[in-house]
């Protein structure tokens, strides 16, 4: 995950119209899109809504000038558990349908149900749209800007300070883990080397993990001391300069938010025959 961290950071440092937009605007849009997508009931209404949302995402991704391969790579990083949950759906029944029709009968009394396939597709669409917007947000916004944006949007001061320290030190420890890995390799150790006994490999990893724990604990002790030297107290918080939203950012929100808000409402109303 450390190499992924550096990979994500690298994308976020590129330049594009989407990268340039204020973090606040992107946070609002992406979180709103996820909440809206999750809010749509588990019904085929999801499909048109998901399609519109995904198109919105695709347009923004194109504008961000990031390669589709980057998107693909990032999706693959997070999918295993979600895909497992979705895949299993087609074999099981769930409370959202009353009648099930089997479309394939497998040995051991396992059936594939049409309704379950539909439900799996619904989950898949919702899942994909949600992670796409998170990927968009973190691929086009630097971590420090995300944090500053969250602070300007009203994230409580104590959280921005704590999260800020976390953000700072994941990179410090990121480099440390990298170096630890290199020094293990220099002494011919690989956790995946099958010539070495499994228990031995596990013990070595446990020692390195214990060492990382101690080092981060001690880093915390030293940092705390350095903070005291600079007057750290209960009222301390992260310095976040005031900055009004630029016209461009407002325009971005004005262009995108109606899509996020109206699409699910319209889709739901029309599915209920109200439109």
């Amino acid at each position, binding site marked *: 995950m450390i190499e992924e961290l550096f990979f994500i950071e690298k994308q976020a440092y590129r330049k594009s119209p989407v990268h340039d937009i204020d973090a606040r605007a992107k946070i609002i849009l992406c979180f709103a899109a996820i909440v809206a997508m999750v809010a749509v009931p588990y019904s085929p209404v999801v499909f048109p809504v998901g399609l519109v949302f995904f198109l919105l995402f695709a347009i923004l991704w194109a504008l961000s000038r990031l390669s589709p391969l980057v998107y693909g790579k990032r999706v693959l990083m997070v999918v295993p558990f979600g895909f497992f949950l979705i895949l299993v759906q087609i074999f099981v029944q769930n409370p959202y349908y009353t009648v099930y029709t089997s479309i394939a009968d497998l040995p051991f009394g396992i059936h594939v149900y049409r309704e379950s396939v539909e439900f799996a597709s619904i989950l898949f669409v919702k899942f994909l749209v949600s992670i796409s917007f998170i990927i968009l947000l973190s691929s086009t916004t*630097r*971590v*420090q800007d995300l*944090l*500053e944006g969250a602070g300007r949007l009203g994230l409580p001061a104590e959280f921005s300070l704590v999260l*800020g*320290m976390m*953000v*700072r*030190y994941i*990179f*410090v420890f*990121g*480099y440390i883990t990298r170096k630890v890995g290199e020094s293990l390799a220099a002494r011919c150790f690989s956790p995946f080397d099958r010539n070495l006994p499994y228990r031995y490999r596990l013990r070595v990893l446990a020692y390195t993990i214990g060492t990382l724990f101690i080092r981060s604990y001690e*880093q915390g002790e*030293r*940092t705390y*001391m*350095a*903070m*005291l*030297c*600079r*007057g*750290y*107290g209960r*009222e*301390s*918080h*992260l*310095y*976040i*300069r*005031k900055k009004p939203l630029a016209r461009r950012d407002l325009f971005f929100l004005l262009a995108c938010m109606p899509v996020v808000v109206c699409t699910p409402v319209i889709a739901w109303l029309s599915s209920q025959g109200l439109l």
Partner: protein
Amino acid sequence: MHLIETRDLCHVYPGNVRGLDRVNFIAPRNARIAVIGANGAGKSTLFKHFNGILQPTSGTILIRGEPITRENVKEVRKFVGVVFQNPDDQIFSPTVEQDVAFGPMNLGLDGETVRHRVEEALRVVGITHLRNRVPHHLSGGEKKRVAIAGIIAMEPQVLVLDEPTAGLDPAGVRDLVDFVNSLARRFGMTVIYSTHDVSLVPEMADIVYVMDKGRIVASGTCREVFVQHEMLASVRLEVPVIPRLIGALRQEGVGISMAYTFDEAKNAFLEAFGRRG
């Protein structure tokens, strides 16, 4: 009244490890003070008493004539700024600007003043161009400057630097020496620093303290300290190469006057050769 004064300062770490042993240390106004000693001699332990991070086991520490108390410790930390050895300990905010602003923020200054202080500190340290950068993309030397800027922004009158040249390359060391000298000259600050790179000391110290095993074993000007070759050797320090060379030549009967910095040495040698030639 001295800016900092310790009287028979002792510090015993948990487990009966003696950190400091009857240390008497004085920091006058507008002085550049070097504290030299081998690793583990007690330099950092001493520095941590200067702003109340550690409390004396016995003895006294006086800041502007007053002991450090719960009530004045915040004032003391505004007055004595300590920069630690490893900048990663000290830079804990996501961006350079946020980090430098941390100290002023805690002083309860308003936004305008904080911005002004940050601006000024970045300028003094010469890193205005780094303000929006993240610390992990900086070089070791740049991080060191950020750490110093974070302290400078609190506008202390005494700046304490723990091993400021550790990990710097020759160009970085050169910049640091110039910076320390300019702080004393231009801003009238008192700068206290520790180092075991003795060759730098003649170029950037008015007063030298030599520490060993928690004690101060010698003090004085460079001239007074660096003639004591045996003492320095006994505390596992070296005499800088220039006085060592001149000392060795004088022992062989060469008539040359003592020198400490490069320029002094060059002149001394030219004079010696001239007189003889």
